[in-house]
């Protein structure tokens, strides 16, 4: 243990985490690329993602890096432009389920008793469905819109956060520092919100990273079977679905490039987990 103190600040702690784990550094670099594409992609791509052209089903070339599709649209432009939509869906869904899961989990974990029983059984019911199937049902029922994809994804992810938070809160409910906070005159609400919940953040961050990946997969999977996002909107799942029709005749680029970019995004989110956890974990500070 060195003589360094916390006064180094958050930025240097993030730097330290990055240096500790090269995988984290790579993952954050990949995330930076994705965010860049989401923010600036639509302005920078070489072709209009919706404009059809005469040159249909062209293999990759200098003009069309990822080739063109059956309507002559530029696959590269469509892939990049779709980043924004898929990121919005996953970030939106994860944010919603994070908040909902945190509140439900805290209530169930701290007070126990009947709130716990009601919340836990409710979550069990959601978890009783194969989650993708439930998402299908919700989107089919609520209607085919992007918002509904976000809500459906949020609903199926909420139980995971709630369970993590419930467990983390529950084991700390009688911890010494919680008792001490009580002696210091904190009300129950303050104790849960300010003393216990922040300690559940590290495992939640791992969940966030996994769920961002699932959310993207989920949205793409839904549009693959014709739910949620509708053509001609550029979206990875739709593009793979459209490309699937051409793969057995050898036009591989229609499906492969959007599929790979989709995988790249999910892979990035999945790799982020450990790094995000270390950043919010004070015990990683030296």
């Amino acid at each position, binding site marked *: 243990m060195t003589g360094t103190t916390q006064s180094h600040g958050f930025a240097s702690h993030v730097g330290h985490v990055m240096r500790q784990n090269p995988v984290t550094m790579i993952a954050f670099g990949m995330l930076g690329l994705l965010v860049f594409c989401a923010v600036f992609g639509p302005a920078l791509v070489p072709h209009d993602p919706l404009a059809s052209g005469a040159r249909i089903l062209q293999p990759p070339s200098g003009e069309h890096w990822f080739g063109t599709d059956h309507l002559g649209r530029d696959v590269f432009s469509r892939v990049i432009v779709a980043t924004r939509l898929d990121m919005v869906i996953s970030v939106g869904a994860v944010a919603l389920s994070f908040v909902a899961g945190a509140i439900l989990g805290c209530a169930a974990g701290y007070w126990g008793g009947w709130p716990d029983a009601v919340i836990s*059984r409710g979550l069990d019911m959601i978890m009783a*469905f194969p989650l993708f*199937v439930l998402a299908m049902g919700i989107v089919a029922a609520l209607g085919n819109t992007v918002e509904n994809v976000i809500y459906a994804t949020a609903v199926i992810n909420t139980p995971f956060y709630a369970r993590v938070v419930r467990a983390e809160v529950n084991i700390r409910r009688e911890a010494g520092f919680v008792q001490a906070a009580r002696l210091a005159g904190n009300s129950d609400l303050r104790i849960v919100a300010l003393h216990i919940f922040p300690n559940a953040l590290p495992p939640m961050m791992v969940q966030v990273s996994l769920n961002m990946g699932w959310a993207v997969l989920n949205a793409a999977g839904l549009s*693959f079977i014709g739910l949620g996002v509708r053509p001609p909107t550029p979206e990875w799942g739709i593009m793979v679905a459209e490309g699937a029709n051409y793969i057995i005749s050898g036009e591989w680029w229609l499906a*492969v490039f959007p599929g790979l970019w*989709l995988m790249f995004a999910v892979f990035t989110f999945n790799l982020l987990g450990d790094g995000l956890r270390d950043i919010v974990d004070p015990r990683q500070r030296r």
Partner: protein
Amino acid sequence: MRARLVGARLLQAIPVVIGVVVITFVLTRALPGDPAVYFAGDAADEASIQQVREQLGLDAPLPQQFIRYVGDLLRGDWGNSLSTGQPVLSDLARRLPASLELTLIALLLSCAIAIPLGVMAATRPGSWRDHLCRVLVTAGVSLPTFFTGILLIYVFYYLLDIAPSPLGRLDFLYIEPAPVTGFYLIDSALAGDWDTFGGAARQLVLPAITMAIFTLAPIARMTRAAMLQALSSDFIRTARAAGLPRGRIVYGYALRNALLPVVTTLGMVFSFALGANVLVEKVFAWPGIGSYAVDALVASDYAAVQGFVLAMALLFVTLNLIIDLLYAVIDPRIGFDAT
């Protein structure tokens, strides 16, 4: 003690099943499109639509509709599918074995790869093998199943031409085995028809691999974490100090303890797999309940969709029940200090 535990666990499943039925009911009532309009036909006027609505009981208040719905379910009347014209329950029963055969084979394959991978990673934490393992399984779970499937078809069917055409459970060259279990592998083996067995197995390979790749990660991660924890436990040190050989310590002591949390994870993985199943069946034109549901969704065939969602949920509840009971069998601590 054990019997009471089993009873309690069965009782616990009841509210979940009720909840599942309620959610399914609410979802289907919320589905867009008026079924009465649909059933009345294209040429119907307002009055005949109203008549159909009354026949279907759709004008009654919701609670009454719900009771009627539950009554129908219990009698085995899950409605008729619009697209096939058959009762939904018999459609599902016919197609379910196809889905189960695919999912179970995929999970077996996945466990057979993921558990040894997890053990290997845990016995050498921080080594290049550990990192490689992690990156590989993470890449696997990052691959959307529908994309993996298409990629495999492109490589093994189009480019290399070693896989059969991705259309269903059996090439038309073979005759379907006489249905006993509905699992082609088992039925053909029972009939001694090894040609058909081989044909069915060949069809299974690509979709099963597709799903296995997707489910590797959670199993391997959980195995690794559980193994690491088990290996750092005090009882492992006792076993080492007592001179037990490494193989016995890793497999006999650590792995047996580590498998308990892995079994729990299998429930969640199964949920994963059933969801992925829908997409995989679509890609491989697999005649299971997943592709049935996708077709029904496209055709707004609401009895079929509702039947599918309900069947999936009931299947999953049953499976979790089995896993929990299995857990109670292999872990002696359950039943005394049950949490």
